[in-house]
């Protein structure tokens, strides 16, 4: 009796999302899952659900020093999971700091803001667009780390359009990004900002290749 006989197609599909989140897939399967993550909203939603379900595993790690061998694995895993397993106190403090920071940004008119949430619903970044729409300030609202091998890339997604890269951002400090002139008309309250994990130096393809770890819609304050 193999799993192929007894696990239905719907469950197999959902399991792939779980296996992706758990990190048990081999390199080739993982690449396939990443491709689907970028191209199938349904699959991305399943990945998000599993991230929410399994995120607590990271929270449950006891606060004692594990053996060094285990530690490397935990680091690798946690690098990604910190997004979802953030201590709430730290999150609240960071969010507050982000809002204070944004409130101080010089602006005569109500700026466009976006709260970029992780799939768990927790805010990962807060972004503010300058009055002219030509600068985006993005502030981390949670302790994030993609590990040393990952870059965080910010994307502008106009409605009905493909993502446009706004460049790499730093998960540990506020970053101000100049919006390319060609994209200025797209920076409005219909657009979505998203952050994906990419190879060092950013996406090699010009489109998100890694998991989207946070996204949110721009809205007027």
């Amino acid at each position, binding site marked *: 009796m193999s799993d192929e006989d007894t696990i239905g197609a719907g469950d197999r599909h959902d399991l792939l999302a779980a*296996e992706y989140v758990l990190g048990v897939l081999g390199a080739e399967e993982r690449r396939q899952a990443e491709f689907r993550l970028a191209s199938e909203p349904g699959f991305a939603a399943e990945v998000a659900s599993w991230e929410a379900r399994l995120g607590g595993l990271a*929270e449950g790690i006891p606060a004692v020093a594990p053996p060094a061998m285990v530690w490397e694995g*935990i680091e690798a895993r946690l690098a990604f999971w910190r997004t979802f397993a953030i201590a709430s106190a730290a999150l609240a403090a960071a969010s507050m700091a982000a809002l204070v920071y944004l409130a101080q940004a010089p602006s005569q008119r109500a700026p466009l803001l976006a709260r970029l949430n992780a799939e768990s619903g927790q805010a990962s970044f807060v972004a503010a667009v300058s009055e002219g729409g030509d600068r985006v300030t993005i502030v981390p609202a949670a302790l994030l780390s993609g590990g040393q091998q990952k870059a965080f890339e910010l994307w502008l997604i106009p409605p009905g359009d493909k993502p446009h890269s706004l460049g790499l951002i730093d998960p540990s400090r506020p970053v101000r990004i100049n919006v390319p002139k060609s994209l200025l008309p797209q920076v409005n309250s219909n657009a979505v900002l998203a952050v994906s994990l990419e190879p060092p130096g950013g996406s090699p393809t010009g489109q998100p290749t890694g998991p989207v770890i946070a996204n949110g819609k721009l809205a007027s304050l």
Partner: protein
Amino acid sequence: MERLEISEDQARLRDCLQELDERQSAAIRSAFLDGSTYEELAKKASVPLGTMKSWIRRGLLKLRACLER
């Protein structure tokens, strides 16, 4: 409030993991904590690859059912 929600989620996950077979929950924890692939987990546990896949897949399905109750 947020703190409360997080610890409730955690408690739920812990309870649900306890409902799984020992082998299933151990494999899932180990997968997550060690960052190991199916192949590495199977080698470590000295079981065939298919067995390890089955433990984890069935464990995940049970876990999902339990968390959605």
